């Protein structure tokens, strides 16, 4: 793609967050979309590109009254929205459309108008994983972790520390689901879900949504909000089965996606002021810091324990509180993007002073997919 030409001009989450029993899945998409349209002063008829996951872009376009010339239904799990941003940037550059609406909505907790999680018994996962008793992400995403801990010399306390520091960030966010401080001991003593993972090492299950509106950077200056420019993007996928992950200590999708985004953006690690790493579970930030190149393998746990990612640290990480403490409706990638946009606009509840470059890094499935977006509030 031609670099440095696209910006986020509209961004918003759903009006409510957490437990929303009175809104269905498509209703959450629409609420977030209407809020994002209001944020940038556009009407549905101004949108000519749509992208979403979980529901079809056809559902979204029809429900919102949009007649698009571009539709993206990439659905690779929680990082789908990073991929939508990447594809939208390419599409706008190519002239397929001018203004793209990307939405997420999920009734993860209340399950209003939501489908099931089933996998066909004839799928590869249905044949080669499900017979052995996995019961959702807490028992699948976590499977590689004992190997990772052993290889790196990390401990369960290191996992707990991730949750503790993210709670510190959540305490600064009025919309966070959990704000009370916790200790490593609290995390380790919380209910055992799938050994070695306790409840506080697992993400929340909430209802909510979010939406982004992208257009060309030259048009972006005409909108009411400060434009947030896209400097670089990456994506990759690895495997639909966590048991088939090539290396249990490192995500290939993370490495490929992150490298691509860094190369495209031209920024160095030292340039990054703010970082979001999708934290469905406490090990994800550790893998992310290593696979994106912020830490050498074996140094991520010490980096977090040393408060580098905590409030006041040199690399503020998951500043909304993350999936562990802010919210997690199922496909959290949208909320990581929203927090990067808030930080770049300078309006985040836990604002990083003077932040100019933010990275939002997402995971899809159980290390199945990845997407990475490098943002800046300075025009390229």
């Amino acid at each position, binding site marked *: 793609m031609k670099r440095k030409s696209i910006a986020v001009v509209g961004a918003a989450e759903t009006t409510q967050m957490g437990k929303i029993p009175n809104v269905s899945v498509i209703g959450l998409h629409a609420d977030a979309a209407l809020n994002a349209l209001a944020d940038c002063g556009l009407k549905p008829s101004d949108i000519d590109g749509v992208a979403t996951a979980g529901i079809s872009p056809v559902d979204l376009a029809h429900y919102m009254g949009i007649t698009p010339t571009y539709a993206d239904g990439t659905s690779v799990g929680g990082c789908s929205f990073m991929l939508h941003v990447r594809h939208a940037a390419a599409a706008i550059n190519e002239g397929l459309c001018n203004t793209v609406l990307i939405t997420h909505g999920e009734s993860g907790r209340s399950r209003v108008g939501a489908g099931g999680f089933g996998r*066909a*018994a*004839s799928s*590869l996962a*249905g*044949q*080669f*994983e*499900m*017979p*052995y*008793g*996995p*019961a959702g992400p807490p*028992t*699948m995403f*976590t*499977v*590689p*972790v*004992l*190997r*990772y801990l*052993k290889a790196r010399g990390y401990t369960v306390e290191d996992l707990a520390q991730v949750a503790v520091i993210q709670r510190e960030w959540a305490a600064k966010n009025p919309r966070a689901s959990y704000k009370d401080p916790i200790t490593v001991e609290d995390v380790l003593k919380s*209910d*055992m*879900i*799938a*050994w*070695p*993972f306790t409840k506080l090492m697992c993400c929340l299950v909430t209802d909510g949504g979010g939406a982004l509106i992208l257009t060309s950077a030259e048009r972006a200056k005409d909108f009411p909000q400060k434009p947030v420019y896209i400097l670089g993007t990456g994506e990759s996928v690895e495997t639909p*089965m966590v*048991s*088939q992950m090539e290396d*249990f200590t490192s995500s290939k999708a993370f490495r490929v996606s992150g490298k691509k985004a860094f190369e495209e953006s031209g920024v160095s690690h030292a340039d990054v002021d703010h970082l979001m790493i999708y934290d469905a579970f406490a090990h994800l930030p550790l893998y992310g810091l290593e696979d994106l190149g912020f830490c050498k393998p074996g140094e991520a746990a010490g980096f977090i324990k040393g408060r580098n990612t905590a409030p006041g640290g040199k690399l503020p990480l998951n500043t909304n509180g993350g999936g562990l403490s802010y919210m997690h409706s199922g496909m959290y990638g949208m909320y990581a993007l929203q927090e990067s946009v808030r930080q770049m606009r300078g309006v985040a509840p836990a604002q990083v002073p003077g932040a100019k470059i933010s990275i939002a890094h997402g995971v899809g499935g159980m290390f199945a997919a990845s997407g990475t977006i490098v943002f800046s509030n300075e025009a390229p």
Partner: protein
Amino acid sequence: MPPPRMLPEPTPETRNFWDGCKAGELRLQRCTDCDGGSYFPPRPFCPRCGSRKVEAYKASGQGVLWSYVINMRPRPDMGTEPYAIAVVKLAEGPQMMTNIVGCPQTPEALVLDMPVKVTFAPQNDDISLPFFEPAGA
């Protein structure tokens, strides 16, 4: 009544594997065009070079415990006791998800890198699931 255990539904591409389990053999596949080694799950071509010249063979059934979690909230079809969802690294290279049987489902009994060997558990007339047990058992 708990629901019946979730079982695989073989496809034409995986039928040979499940027939092997039924016959008491753990079958892997390998390419006869490249030296890319064994692969899993089954498919009718080599995932490394794309060649369709592949063969199934009887694997040793031996491996080591590579990683696992112990699910403390059993899936309804899996009984009422916690159980390990494990990945075994086979001697031939591929990894596969499985359950470890013949030993307590505890961190003390389930030690990473311990040798394990395959054992087959018939579930019905068609399907036997490949589980693993400590190799010394």
